[in-house]
């Protein structure tokens, strides 16, 4: 992979982290800024550093429910810190994980020692997410006037995936069923209280946008959450805590803007063999991440992926490398990610049953909690290495991190 050095794998670590959750019905309706600031304070305390040691503050792009320019300045202003460097890191829904990668590059430069990263949204508390989401997911001039919903944009990819690989709606439904089984054990999961579901439940739920049924679609998180992380060089992390979480490998791919634009992409990864909707940047991002970490998919104990629709579970599984390309549907259908006995995947319930709250690091927080042996939901016994994937766009930006409780 051009531009990537294996030397960086494990050279940086997350030395402090915190996730703050807000729910509909809380006594007070909280803003995204407030959540970022609280998560930041707690992450810095968890890291055991003073505010004067924070050399850079990075944030994700301004949350839709707090849509201001230079959101990063609002955060550092509230914290009363004066870092040398600051910026929003934006790459649609992949931006949050990208932020951790860029934080690593900053501390590896030696310019500063600690980078504070904040992420999170609470859109559902403030705006109508169904009505407004398609307006940011679709090209306003050439797609939005036709009345697409966000599910119908992703469904274009689902139809092609079924056509090209033979994956079936029953296999997609299986992914939703297994996600729900993990969610039932997680105290923060949006759908935990709904209990387990069956493939028939998914297929008999109403169609939202063919071939996607209601239970093939992630619910917006009924509230919001914010996660903050402190990144530093590994040797420094080890000097003041015995359980840093190492960033073993990372990768990214950013390819287009609107869905239709994707079909103007050819000749470059991941569309080397011609325009398509289904070979996503997750392939390139995963290759980079595994190469940097010196690991293979079989070395991982668990993984999380941003899959707002059920068909993305098998598609991302195959593209990250947990099964051969084109085999994702059969892998899921054959029990490959079953709650009982399958590879632990989306262990907090995933977007499908934990709920989606874009631009977050809550999937990374789940990885951190698992490899530290402090899972809030069902633990994966002995977990040491985890992969987390984030995407946005739709399917335009992909970012992957591999983290572990041991440096090598």
């Amino acid at each position: 992979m051009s531009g990537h050095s294996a030397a960086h794998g494990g050279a940086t670590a997350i030395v402090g982290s915190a996730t703050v959750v807000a729910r509909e019905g809380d006594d007070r309706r909280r803003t995204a800024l407030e959540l970022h600031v609280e998560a930041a304070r707690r992450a810095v305390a968890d890291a055991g550093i003073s505010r004067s040691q924070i050399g850079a503050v990075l944030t994700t792009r301004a949350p839709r429910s707090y849509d201001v320019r230079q959101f990063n300045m609002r955060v550092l202003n509230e914290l009363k810190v004066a870092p040398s460097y600051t910026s929003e890191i934006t790459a649609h829904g992949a931006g949050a994980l990208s932020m951790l990668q860029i934080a690593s590059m900053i501390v590896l430069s030696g310019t500063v020692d600690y980078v504070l990263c904040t992420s999170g949204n609470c859109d559902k508390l403030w705006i109508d997410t169904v009505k407004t989401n398609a307006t940011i997911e679709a090209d306003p001039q050439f797609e939005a006037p036709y009345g697409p919903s966000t599910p119908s944009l992703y469904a274009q990819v689902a139809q092609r995936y079924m056509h090209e690989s033979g994956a079936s709606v029953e296999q997609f439904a299986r992914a939703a069923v297994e996600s729900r089984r993990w969610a039932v054990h997680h105290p923060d999961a949006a759908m935990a209280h709904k209990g387990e579901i069956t493939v028939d439940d998914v297929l008999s739920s109403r169609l939202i946008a063919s071939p996607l049924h209601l239970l093939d679609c992630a619910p917006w998180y009924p509230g919001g959450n914010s996660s903050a992380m402190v990144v530093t060089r590994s040797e420094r992390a080890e000097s003041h805590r015995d359980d840093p979480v190492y960033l073993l490998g990372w990768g990214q791919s950013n390819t287009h803007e609107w869905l239709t634009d994707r079909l103007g992409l050819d000749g470059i990864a991941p569309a080397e063999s011609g325009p398509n909707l289904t070979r996503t940047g997750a392939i390139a991002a995963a290759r980079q991440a595994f190469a940097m970490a010196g690991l293979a998919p079989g070395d991982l104990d668990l993984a999380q992926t941003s899959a707002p629709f059920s068909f993305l579970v098998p598609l991302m599984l195959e593209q990250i490398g947990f099964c051969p390309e084109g085999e994702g549907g059969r892998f899921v259908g054959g029990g490959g990610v079953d709650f009982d006995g399958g590879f632990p995947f989306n262990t907090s319930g995933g977007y499908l049953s934990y709920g989606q709250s874009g631009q977050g690091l809550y999937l990374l927080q789940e990885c951190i909690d698992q490899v530290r042996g402090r899972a809030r939901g069902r633990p994966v016994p002995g977990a040491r290495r985890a992969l987390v994937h984030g995407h946005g766009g739709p399917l335009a930006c992909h970012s992957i991190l591999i983290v572990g409780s041991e440096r090598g």
Partner: protein
Amino acid sequence: MTSNQSAGTTIDWSEGFRVVAGHMELGLTEASPETQGFWDGVERDQLMIKRCVRCGRHLHPRRMGCPDCWQGDLRWVEATGGGTVYSFSTVHRAPAAVWQASAPYCVGIVWLDEGVALFTRLVPDGGGEPSIGDRVVVSFRALESGQKLPVFLVREGRS
């Protein structure tokens, strides 16, 4: 709200051309300098796309330059209006009330015979869902927002 500003007029970005659907504003969907020729074509029931004067590749009407040649000399050409269904989805739950009244309706992507992909409304012959590979032909209709748009009529049978 059926007309875009005609060629030759100054585009007023302060007012824009807005599509409002129920309580939702879709944002600025007015013809922009690089797409004016497309919307002028829609007014004439002509489907206009772009072509690179250097390499001859046909391009999406929104392209400002050739992404392969990295140069900005493009010209408008009329597409034949024929193509095939690349993908589709029937919307049952619309994003806003103005569209929900028409649901279920089918949105999809067509590959024009010139090799350009367009997002569109698919109108299956006799209802039902189209299939990937079905032949399509362009037509021009005012959709729910009142805006006149190119749509594609589906002819059953694969190309």
